[in-house]
């Protein structure tokens, strides 16, 4: 029962973040919304594991959290510098 409530709340929040990711004025809004969507996917995988009575999906949730972090850092670095190879030397803000 409570798992269904949590899953419905996660799905509603997913719809809201997808709305922001589609509508967002700047690209940083879209990155922010996709990052929140990844966190919600982790929560949804964990809740669905308990909802179906087989909580073995948590390995997938853990791996998805790792991929979400790396992906968000990589996309924000790529959007800022247009490459991911060398660090930004001489900039006053430095590397992110």
């Amino acid at each position, binding site marked *: 029962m409570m798992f269904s409530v949590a899953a419905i709340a996660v799905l509603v929040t997913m719809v*809201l973040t997808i709305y922001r990711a589609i509508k967002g*004025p700047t690209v940083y809004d879209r990155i922010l919304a996709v990052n929140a969507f990844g966190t919600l996917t982790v*929560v949804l995988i964990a809740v669905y594991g308990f909802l179906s009575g087989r909580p073995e999906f948590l390995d997938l949730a*853990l791996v998805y*959290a*790792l991929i979400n972090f790396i992906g968000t850092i990589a996309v924000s670095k790529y959007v*800022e510098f247009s490459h991911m190879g060398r660090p930004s030397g001489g900039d006053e803000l430095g590397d992110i």
Partner: protein
Amino acid sequence: MEMLLDAISWLLILVGSVFLVVGGIGVVRLPDMFARMHGAGIIDTLGAGAVLIGLIFQAGLNIVSVKLVLIVVFILFTSPTTTHALARAALNGGVRPRVEAPPEDAPTGGGGESSKT
């Protein structure tokens, strides 16, 4: 004891669900990109954290709760890092925080208008 653990876990899952929806509404409704980061922070820390801690109370002491603790710790470490990197990238990319207009310019205090810089 079982009843107490169930009550604690249900309370945490309900509070986490409420904060998830509140954070999603904040991501949609707040006027600026730097303000929308607050909504994303609520989703990351309080919403996901409360739901996953409630699931820990539901699972008991086994490998499932260990994995859930790992997920919670990882989210609590990576969410500020991601938000900081994204705010740095946005500030370096030309997005400026929305500054509230002076009171004599906007006597009604409505949030609809946005200043330039």
